[in-house]
């Protein structure tokens, strides 16, 4: 059961913007849609949410076509926005009511999330100033959206997405434009949602963040899925080819003898690209046999960032 995205395609005129994309989430977790700008991530998300007509394909939630009528969806769109002139609380209530949340329930949830996302000073300034003991004869008015920073507007939108306690959460570039403090706040919330067993689809350019949360990924390039599957399996398939080596003397001769590629070299610290475990072990044996002190020897898989660059780069060359 869960979410099945099957064979999604979309063309604008003669240009294919999404080319037969499929993936599945059979259990809760985070699925990442990665890709360069214009690769088709947002179009795919819009088709998943039935905002755009699909040229082909279907999206099923627990075996039925996905719609907000049969699935409680929370969505943070890539295009951030709020009604600029309407009071913040009014519009948050409006969005919540459209999601079918009752007014008393909404009031509780808004208070909870505004505190959790550190937005209460914008939504409840009167309350915050009284708690902080600030004395003022003036009535403190809540800020209007156009007085908020982009980051805070983004947090408000995230709050809106969380109001209905969604079972499927779609986050399009959730961390872009946030400062480190707010990024950590949002990361904590995402972690909580994963623990709570939510299905999350995330699109992001920040590979380190994706790597932190995602179990499965699809990398899109030129509207096609060029890499797809479980993140650990994908990494394993590339093998352990990154060797970080630190010695007390120059060992470049030994490295060259084995035909290993030196990526960087700085005062006897080397970043090497090996063909696999066997070549790395051969180098280690040679160094030990030669009585060279090895300070660090770390064999690692490729990072997601490196896989992305490698695969997308190769695809760009082909196109």
């Amino acid at each position: 059961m869960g979410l099945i995205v099957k064979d999604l395609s979309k063309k604008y005129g003669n240009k294919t913007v999404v080319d037969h994309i499929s993936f599945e989430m059979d259990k809760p977790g985070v699925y990442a849609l990665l890709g360069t700008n214009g690769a088709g991530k947002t179009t795919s998300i819009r088709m998943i949410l039935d905002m755009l007509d699909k040229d082909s394909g279907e999206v099923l939630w627990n075996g039925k076509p996905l719609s907000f009528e049969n699935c409680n969806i929370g969505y943070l769109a890539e295009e951030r926005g709020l009604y600029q002139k309407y009071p913040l609380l009014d519009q948050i209530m409006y969005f919540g009511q459209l999601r079918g949340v009752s007014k008393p329930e909404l009031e509780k949830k808004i208070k909870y999330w505004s505190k959790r996302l550190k937005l209460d000073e914008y939504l409840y300034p009167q309350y915050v100033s009284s708690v902080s003991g600030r004395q003022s004869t003036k009535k403190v008015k809540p800020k209007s959206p156009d007085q908020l920073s982009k980051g805070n507007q983004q947090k408000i939108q995230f709050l809106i997405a969380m109001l209905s306690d969604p079972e499927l959460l779609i986050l399009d570039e959730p961390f872009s434009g946030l400062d480190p403090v707010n990024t950590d706040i949002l990361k904590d919330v995402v972690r909580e949602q994963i623990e709570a067993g939510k299905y999350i689809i995330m699109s992001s350019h920040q590979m380190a963040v994706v790597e932190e949360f995602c179990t499965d990924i699809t990398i899109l390039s030129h509207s096609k899925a060029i890499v797809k599957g479980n993140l650990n399996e994908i990494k394993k398939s590339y093998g352990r080819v990154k060797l970080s080596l630190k010695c007390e003397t120059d060992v470049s001769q030994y490295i060259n003898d084995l035909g290993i590629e030196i990526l960087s070299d700085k005062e006897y610290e080397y970043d090497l690209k090996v063909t696999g475990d066997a070549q790395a072990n051969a180098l280690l044996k040679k160094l030990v046999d030669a009585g060279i002190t090895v300070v660090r020897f770390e064999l690692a898989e490729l990072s997601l960032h490196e896989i992305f660059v490698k695969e997308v780069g190769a695809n760009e060359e082909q196109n």
Partner: protein
Amino acid sequence: MKSKTNANNIYRMDGIGKVFVFTLKQTFKNKAYLFSFVFMIIMMALMGPISMLSAASSSKAFSDSAEDKENLASTVYYTNDTVYDLVDALDLSGTSYEKLKLQYVTDIPELSDTEIGLIFTTEEKDGETGYVVKSVISDDSKISSINLEDFTKYIYGIFEDVRIRAVMSDDEYALASSGVSTGKALSEQDFYDLKDEKISSSQVTTYATIYSIAIMILVSMSVSYVISSVMEEKTSKLVENLLVSVRPLALIMGKVFAMMVYVVSMLLCGAFASGISSGISAYMFGRGSDASASAAEMAEIAQQMDYSQIFGLNPLRLLALFVSLIITYLMFSIIAGLMGSACTKTEDVGPTIMVLNMFSIAGYICAFIVPNVNNKMLTYILSVVPFISSYIGPISFACERIPFWLYLIGMAVQLLFILLLFRLTAKVYRKLLVNDSKKLNFAQILRLSREGEA
């Protein structure tokens, strides 16, 4: 193969009430909208006193004119070479010239600048002899030529009356002078219509004016509000956030209905304020002016501007006009919403409003021309043609030019047209919402509904 959109979903209206309430509430909370609302009410409330002041000023002009007649001249000398005795006839008491002193003389003396000489005589021209009434003033006279001309015509009328009476008995004179109105010129159609107790062409014009002006007012006031409201989601970039909670049709219709209610409530409040202010003004001006002439003049002005005669219509026909007005307003509002959804920038709004106003003017012109042409075939056909029928149908029915069943068919066609607009809106708005490229024109919108993409 093209994947089908869930047809049940795109026409669903769940959440329309919430969109409507939120939009209306925020509209009234918005300072600019609130200002427009209050401003319009004040303007309409001022219309009562202003028209009263205008009527009072006209009434004053009327009084001034009466005063001019009374003080036209210090003395009027007259000579009479005709065979008729004019002494009794020239007794002007009880007329607007009653204060003038008329004095018979054998010859007109030298006139001062405030005196008039009247000459009743015979003249020969082209071999025929006829009577002439002449009035004379001095070269430096203070009497205006217009006033003198009016006076001369008046006296000539008296002379003519004397002349006719001289050859008729009293009975013959009474018969000749009664029941004849030379003030009304009737066309043949009007003659037969009146004979069959049908509505005259002037009434048709009045009803067409009232109906089409009401639509023009509603449309011209609403379209900019509807378009701005529909564009709001696009310009605020929160369309996608809304579309996971509400279907596009419910979103656009909730907003369109909210703006319709805003405009109608503004007009109703304005009309109410206008009624109250007119009542107060009538009371105040009525007490302040004494002249019966003023009342007569105001009645004359009221007669010229009397649109309330529409309430004299048969209740069924009045109801038909009212229902059609609402449906036509709805139709224009949906078209405005649809075209508004194709706008992406504020600069796109102006041309869109212009197009809609042109539609409204086209309807206005049709509403005037067709009922007055009064071609049965043309009226019948246009009463069932979508869009035009929203003007021709109700007016023709109200004026008894088409039967009730044809009006109902026209209404059914109109409702079907609105239903099609709903479906078009549902299909197109969904696609236009996430389209942030250049503004689309109406042809592109239609193509979008068929092909699926811009």
